[in-house]
């Protein structure tokens, strides 16, 4: 492990406060786990449905601690060359041709596998930065199982091994945050190295505050009605339950349409903003007697 470094936050309350300054209203669960992840130097694995603010959390932590955000967006088929590092082959070839006839092979080889020809990808970038860094590995569940193996070394020891150059150890441990929509089960090995946070829909009080802070022009009574309706919708067995992002979108929609109450007509015309499936809309309309 690298040199001990001073923690970013002093207490859980301070986490809440500074995240709020960065525009992220954190629940006790979020604040506590962020504090622990920083304090224990462990990566934080955030799991939960789409649109509850997993990626936002990473951005907010970066903003609150004035760290740089390094983001690795995972997708199916992502590999070492995209996640860790790559040699700049074209430049290496140029270098070899340029030096031809003037220097020995040994010199050329040593020069070609040096810093200058290394293309760092997000993981290596995050490790090598000396300034405070938040490393966001987004949607890790989309990546293949092999990438998880790659992450193990990076996340447990915060080091990367480049065979030609040796092992690069982090001079300053980044705050690592992994997000997952749980489309697949992550490997036990990876989970064991992380603190686990299941981010679910916030409680009513918190959601009201989130909507009010994101759409400040919205009247308080309307926010109240909006959140209550969305919470009832979540209780129905729908294909896709509306998330916080959708509540905010709904608020913005009502604002843009200049509606100041959530009456039947308003709901009927704008329900598509929160429910994205036709069958969900039909079901909600029938169950909530909207016809």
């Amino acid at each position: 492990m690298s040199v001990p470094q001073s923690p970013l936050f002093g207490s859980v309350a301070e986490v809440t406060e500074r995240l709020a300054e960065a525009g992220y209203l954190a629940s006790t669960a979020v604040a506590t786990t962020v504090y622990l992840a920083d304090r224990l130097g462990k990566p934080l694995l955030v799991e939960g449905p789409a649109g509850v603010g997993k990626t936002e959390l990473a951005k907010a932590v970066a903003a609150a601690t004035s760290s740089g955000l390094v983001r690795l967006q995972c997708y199916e088929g992502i590999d070492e060359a995209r996640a860790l590092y790559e040699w700049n082959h074209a430049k290496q070839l140029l270098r070899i041709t340029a030096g031809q006839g003037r220097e020995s092979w040994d010199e050329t080889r040593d020069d070609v596998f040096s810093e200058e020809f290394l293309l760092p990808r997000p993981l290596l970038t995050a490790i090598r930065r000396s300034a405070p860094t938040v490393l966001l590995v987004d949607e890790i569940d989309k990546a293949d199982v092999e990438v998880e193996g790659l992450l193990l070394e990076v996340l447990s020891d915060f080091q990367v091994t480049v065979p030609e150059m040796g092992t690069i150890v982090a001079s300053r441990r980044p705050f690592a945050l992994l997000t997952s929509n749980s489309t697949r089960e992550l490997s036990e090995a990876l989970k064991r190295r992380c603190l686990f946070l299941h981010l679910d829909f916030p409680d009513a009080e918190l959601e009201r505050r989130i909507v009010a802070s994101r759409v400040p022009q919205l009247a308080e009574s309307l926010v109240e009605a909006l959140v209550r309706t969305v919470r009832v919708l979540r209780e129905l067995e729908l294909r896709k339950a509306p998330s916080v992002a959708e509540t905010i979108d709904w608020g913005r929609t009502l604002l843009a349409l200049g509606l100041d109450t959530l009456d039947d007509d308003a709901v009927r015309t704008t329900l598509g903003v929160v429910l994205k499936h036709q069958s969900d809309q039909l079901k909600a309309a029938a169950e909530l007697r909207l016809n």
Partner: protein
Amino acid sequence: MSTAGTIGPGAGPAHGLPGHLVDFVGALRRHRVAVGPGETVDAAEVVTVLDLLHREQVREGLAAALLRRSGQRQVFDALFDLYFPAAIGAGSGEVDVPRIGDGDAGPVDIGALRDLLADLLRNDDDAALAELARAAVEALGRSGAAGVGAERSGAAPSWSAYQALRLLSPETLLAQIMDDLRAAHDEEPSRFADEIARRAIRERIARFRAMINDEVRRRTAETLGREQVARTAVPMQAEQVEFLSAYAEQLAQLRRIVHPLARRLASRLAVRRRHAKRGELDMRRTLRRSMSTGGVPIKPAFRTRRPGRPELVVLCDVSGSVAGFSHFTLLLVQALREQFSKVRVFAFVERTDEVTHLFEPGAELSGVMNRVLREARLVSFDGHSDYGSSFGTFAEYWGDAVTPRSSLLILGDARNNYRDPNLTVLRRLVGQTRHAHWLNPEPRRQWGSGDSAALRYADMLPMHECRTAGQLADVVEALLPV
């Protein structure tokens, strides 16, 4: 938290906080939450850096260190409340329970208490509700209620969620709260607004019921010892609830895990497919190739696998006794339908009928079981399961549905009400298919007991025990085609 390890009998020897933490982890393990020693060490570290006076922070911190899956949270919370109780004894509540007479120990005035509860439910104040739950359980357990034959005095206190909820009967407050809300508005609210308010209140009432249950569990743990309570009163993870004994709420919870479960199965399958991309060694082609290298097989040839996406035929008992299991399995099959080239679903009780059209993609699936029972012709005589005649009608009308390309999946408990099991027809059907499997929600030791024909059917096709969603997932994963 300084009192940890000293609560009640049966708490075991006190080793301070570390010992207590280990006890807690042990309880989690007994509830099939897999926690390794590494996680326990993490939890200990968590406890050292957190302020132990903030109970919610300790709860979240331990959850972050110990849990690895979201479905485990409910079990964790219940056990956490037992091992790290919010208060000892009655606690120091702010809420005064209204009583008959002046004293502090008079019987509880249920009417006034219900009014208080209605106010809190209307105002949606969670903290106050929790306080009220605590005070109400305490007062009702110690002093009883006035005028309902539940007065107690002097006797040992008894904590009962059933009694508290029966006396308070929060459900019956719904109409009163709705009237209050309507009176607060000048104009008549629309039906939609009304419905939203009604459902919101109902959800709060459910929350209050849960609070009463939690509180009673905590108080009981103080008298009986928490190991005892942890064993009997802590809810199971949804995946480990037995289908046959699940109640409505658990079944609804199960339905919510269908899609995550299906996704998990599909992704594991994808991994298996990738690993199995290369088939077995093709001897003939390897030898033919080796001729060009002087008989040395330098480049072996492999058979390429054909992706087999079989047709699936599901025959499913939908009689009352196994309905929960059938429903869940059908939803799972529906969620996995991409893995099959064609799925046909048949339901039966006394006779068989095809219900594939009810499971079309995009169909509304939560009420599908009711539609199956309403629209399909499943009953001919008295409505008791009759496996023999069901197989008979299936073979008669849809016998051509099973082909050598199809897999047959039969769901049911094989309780045949002592009727003819019709083994000949089933044997013929099994012979026509590529694979046939039977999923049985009963525990294996009960197979063949009483009117169960399970063992006789099991002679003809492999029968798997599927008592819980977890077990079902394992079986289905093993059966899915690579």
